[in-house]
Every structure is written in C-alpha cells, then in structure tokens.
C-alpha cells in the first residue's frame, strides 16, 4: 500500500484532518535519508584503518629520516586531541553529561588510540618502562579511567577496562575473548573471576554513590562476560570444583539478570539465560543424568528449549516491563 492511499484511508476514517494530511504528504515526499549510522560507522572504520596503519608504520620505518617526522606528527596529533578535549570539555558532573563540542567523543577516542600507539612505540624503541611491562599497561589504564569519568565516555571506559584486564593477563576484547584466553588454565580462570568480581563490585559501589551510574553497562558487559566465561571454564575443566564454579556462575547470572532489569538491557537478559542454561544443563548431565539414554536426554532439551522460548515470549509479563 502506498502512503498516499493510506492517507486517504486515514482521512476517510476520520483519523486525520485534511490540512494535516497535506502537511504529512509534503513531509513524506521530502523526507530525507538519515546518514547518521552510515557516517558514524564510516568514521570508526576510517579511524581504525588510520590508527592501525600508523601503528605498523612506526615500526617499519625505524632508523629512517621519515621516521622521526612520523613520530613527531603522531605525538602532535595526540597532544592536539587532548588539548582540544580539555579545552572544550564540559566540566565534571557525577551524572550523565552530554558534550556539546563537535566531534568531541571521536577526538577523545582518537587521542586515546594514538596515545596507545605512541606509548607502545616508546617502549619498543627506548624501553621506556624497561621490563616493567605491568607499568606500561597500567599507565594507560589509569589515564583512560580518569578520562572516561572526566568526560563521560563509555568507549574510553571500555579501553580502560581492557587495559586493566591485560594487566592481569586477560583479554577483554569481545572478538578475542575465547581465542586469547585459555579458560582451561586454572590461573586464567582464577584471575578472570577475581577481576570480574573486583570490577563489578567497584562499579556497583560507584553506582550507589551516584557516580556515572550508566557506566555500569560497560562494566557488566566486559568484566561480567569475562567472569561468566571463567566460571564455565572452571566447571568444564576442574571437575572437583564444578559445584563451586556452578554456584559462582549462578551468582553471576543472577547479577546479569538484575542488571538486565535495572539497565533495561535485553542483551544482559539473553546472556544470563544462555549462561545459566549451559551451566545447569552441564551440571545435570554430569552428575545426575550420567549415562542417560539419548531419548530422554533429547526430551530434556526439547522441554527446556520450549520452556526458554516461552520465557522469552512472556518475559515482559514476568518482569513487569513495558
């Protein structure tokens, strides 16, 4: 049905006066295509390409004349970005702050990324931090936490969390979560669980103080997922402790669920359901249903899957959410 036929219909049903109809028809004819998402994506892709390219170029051109020019330019760009940010940023307030300067969030992110590239280079070339590698990741972590809170930037906060995670030997980058963390290694599991708990408790305390309550989302997303994965890893690999890990997983899922309600986040609802289902199913099959015949096992999956589908269909009623 085309829009002008619909407008006829609305007019006939008395839902629309004819003056408004004319306005709407005019509007629909001239309605512009919004390039917001497209240009934003293109911007992030471009920045990624630029920073990635520059990051490699630094190392390839070491010992040439162009090299120091390049470093100088990057240092200048980094300083310029931070200068812009500190000059134009809105003052700190504990609640959510909207920056009014144009491209503010992008400039801040770019500054942080260039800072990382520069720092990595200084360490490589001059061994700025010697073998104190921990210090080399701790400095950006602290600086980024400061920037994230100072200017209210969740992207920079995720950078800070990833930096802090790498300080304890973990990877929090979502695409590398399962590739670079070896969740069969007890030490990785232990660190991830401690890291997750510290981050989540810390963010919860800050939220209670009313400091950047919306940052909770980023903490739960990055540190929380790491924690849940570590619990599953523990269950699968350390048989003696599987009940303990199951309990930790249960607490984590409950926390995700609680945040799903508070942040109105359906992603958290999804994650908590999937992790809890995996954990419970694993425990059941590993302890009680051991050696069960296929037919009954498949009945279990059939019934539980149907149950969860039903849960997703009716969660709004259950959670009393509109």
């Amino acid at each position: 049905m085309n829009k002008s036929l619909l407008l006829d219909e609305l007019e006939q049903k008395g839902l629309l006066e004819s003056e408004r109809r004319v306005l709407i028809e005019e509007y629909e004819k001239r309605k512009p295509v919004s390039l917001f998402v497209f240009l934003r994506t293109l911007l992030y892709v471009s920045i990624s390409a630029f920073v990635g390219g520059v990051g490699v170029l630094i190392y390839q051109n070491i010992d040439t004349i162009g090299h120091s020019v390049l470093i100088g330019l990057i240092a200048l760009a980094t300083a310029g970005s931070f200068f812009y940010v500190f000059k134009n940023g809105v003052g700190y307030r504990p609640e959510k702050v909207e920056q009014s300067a144009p491209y503010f969030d992008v400039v801040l992110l770019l500054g942080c990324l260039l800072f990382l590239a520069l720092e990595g280079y200084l360490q490589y070339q001059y061994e700025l931090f010697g073998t104190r590698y921990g210090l080399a990741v701790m400095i950006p972590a602290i600086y980024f936490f400061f920037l994230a809170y100072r200017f209210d930037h969740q992207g920079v906060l995720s950078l800070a969390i990833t930096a802090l995670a790498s300080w304890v030997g973990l990877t929090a980058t979502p695409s590398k979560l399962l590739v670079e963390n070896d969740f069969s290694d007890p030490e990785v599991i232990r660190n991830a669980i401690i890291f997750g708990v510290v981050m989540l408790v810390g963010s919860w305390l800050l939220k209670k103080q009313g400091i950047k309550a919306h940052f909770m989302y980023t903490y739960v997303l990055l540190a929380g997922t790491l924690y849940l994965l570590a619990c599953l890893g523990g269950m699968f690999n350390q048989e003696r402790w599987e009940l303990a890990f199951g309990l930790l997983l249960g607490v984590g899922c409950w926390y995700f669920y609680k945040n799903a309600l508070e942040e109105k986040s359906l992603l958290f609802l999804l994650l908590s359901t999937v992790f809890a289902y995996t954990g419970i199913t694993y425990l059941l099959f590993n302890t009680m249903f051991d050696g069960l015949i296929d037919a009954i096992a498949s009945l279990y999956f059939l019934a539980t899957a149907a149950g969860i589908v039903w849960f997703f269909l009716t969660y709004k009623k259950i959670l009393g959410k509109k």
Partner: protein
Amino acid sequence: MKAYNETLLKNEWVQKLAQDWTQKKLITQPQRENIDKVYSPLPYRPNWFIWIGLFIFTILGLSAATVIFLPIIDTQFAETFLGPIYGLGVLFFLNFLIKDRRLHFSGIDNAMLYAIVLSFAPLIMQIADLNYQAPWLLGLAYLPLLLFLIYYYGEPLITVGTFLTGLFIVASLAMEFVWGKLLLPFIAMLYAGAVWYFVHQFLKKEQSFYWKTALEWTHIAALSVFYAAGNYFVVREGNAALNDLPDPSPEVALAGIFWLLTFVIPLLYLYAAIHWKSLTFLVLGSIALLASLITLHYYYPFIPGDWATALLGLAGVVLVVWLMRYLKEIKNGFIYKPEADSELAILAGNIIATEIGQSATDSPQGPKFGGGDFGGGGSGEGY
C-alpha cells in the same frame, strides 16, 4: 494464501508511520493514539537480542526433537521419508504458532522454516538421484519447495538462498559448455541484473508489501553478485581456481573490460544512491569502491600496504567530517542528524573502541594492549 496475516503487517507499518509523524509534530498525541487503536493488533516482533535467544533455543528444541526419531530410522523408507514427515509436522505447528502467537520473523518462525528446508533434504536428494554427478540437479529439485516457502512466508534468508541456488544452477549449466565457461562472469552478471530488475520493478507494486523484507534482501544480494561477478580479482582468481591453474594466477582475457567494470560499477551504485536517495546503494557502492581499491592495490601495489591503510583512513576521516558538516541541513535528500542511542548503538560504541584499541597496538613487542600477554597472570613481571 499467505501464512502471515497481512492486516497485522499493515498495522505495524501504519503505527510506525504514526510514530514518526508524532515525533515530527505532524499529528497530535491523541491522534496517534486513535490511529494505534484502529490499527491494532500488531504482529509479535521481538527486540534483536530476544530474537537471538528465541532463534537459538528453537533450533535447540528442534534438534532435540529429531534425536528422538533417530532410533526409528532403520529402513530406506524411513531414511527418505521421516525427514519430510517431520518437516510437515513442523510446518503445521509453525502455522499454528503464527496464528496463535501472531509471530512474524520472530526468531522462532525463522528457525522453524530453516528446519523445514533441511528436513526435506533426504527426499530431495533421492529425487535428484545425483551420485554427485551434477550437484546443480539438487538445486533444481529443491527449487519448487523453496519457491513455495518464499511465496507463502516471504522469509528473507530463504529468499536470498533461493537466489543463490538459482545462480549456482545457472553457473553450473554454463560450465558444461566451453563458451559458457568463457562467458561465466557475464552470465552471472546477466542473471543478477535480471533478478535485480525484477525486484526493483516488483517493489513499486502494491502487492509487493507482503514480501518487502525478502525483496529488499534480494535486492542487496543481487547487486552484490552483480558487482562481484565483474570484479577483476574475482574473475582472475576464479578463473585460475576453476581451471586448476597454478599460482600465481595468469592474466585473463578481456582484462581491460573487467578492470573497467571493477571501477564503473561502484561509481554507478554511488550515482544510483544519489539519484534514488537510496541508503542501500550508498552502502553497497562504498563497500564496492573500497573492494575495488583493494583489488587494484593487490595487483599493482603502488604504495606499501600500511601507508595505503593509514592514508585511506585519514582520507576517510576527512571525508566523513566534511560530510557531517555539509549534511547538517538537508542536501539532495540526505541529512546527518544525531539520533537517540539505542542499546545496540551503545553496545557497538563499547565494542568498537576495544577492537580498535587492539588494532592500534599490534606492535612487534610493545605492551600489547588487550592482548593479555603481559603481567603473567597478575604476578611475575608485573611490578
């Protein structure tokens, strides 16, 4: 006969428009409420994350249900027909759910439709009786079922799959002849172009409403194939692969034409984007142009790759910033205006930052950020 209630789909469309008009203050809130009252009920369409959950668990349930049947499959007859019988069962259950729960592409129905397509595989393989001689026969034997499902449900992924099945059949047939093999890129382009033209024309018609999503997906698929089939890299490497030629791939005949196509088609798409005010063409044209530049760089690396990446990125940043400024007011039907953040946008912002952070520090030895290879588990070299 259609599976989904078209009135519900229309209601959804009208309510969406009314919402937009209210935001633009073209109608009043009470007017909108009246419209919503008249145009209800709506089909059930979940949020994206819930969609994923519904999809995963429907697949899990369906797979578990097949396992129950496994012990019965012991005769040739059962092997061939149990699948389709199961599929028919799912089909009836699906139609019931669509009516009862007003589902429309909710994850549940999508998963069930894919299961139905798969469940007919044993029977169709039997019919096509290939012995792996001509795999395209399998595609051909599948077509009636696929076309029926497209007509009845209009599910987008199945529609795109059918389009690709058609491409596979056409290409396989062409390969049987010497001239067909030679003209393969053009045949694929002709096929994609014809499908695109049909979709483009059909979308203008009133009746296309029920299949709108499917048609829009096919539109994208057809344009992508059209570009890829003429792309120099695809032609040259594809030619080498099809004829088992050694690496590096040799130059192809009509190279000039393919180079021309590689660059003319993206520009054509970008022109179409401006001409028709089409976001689809804009996105496809941009991706295609980027792919073409990469193709050019692959065969003629006139500057080192990292320089190319950095400079292209810089050019991209400058271009985007300029466009953001330029499009503050409506220009030629396009606008750049900040939109309210959805959860998906916040999520993307968080994830993208960490991903770029990783790429920024892929240094040979530096403190590899986000790589987790320093600090040795919180102890060791840390401090």
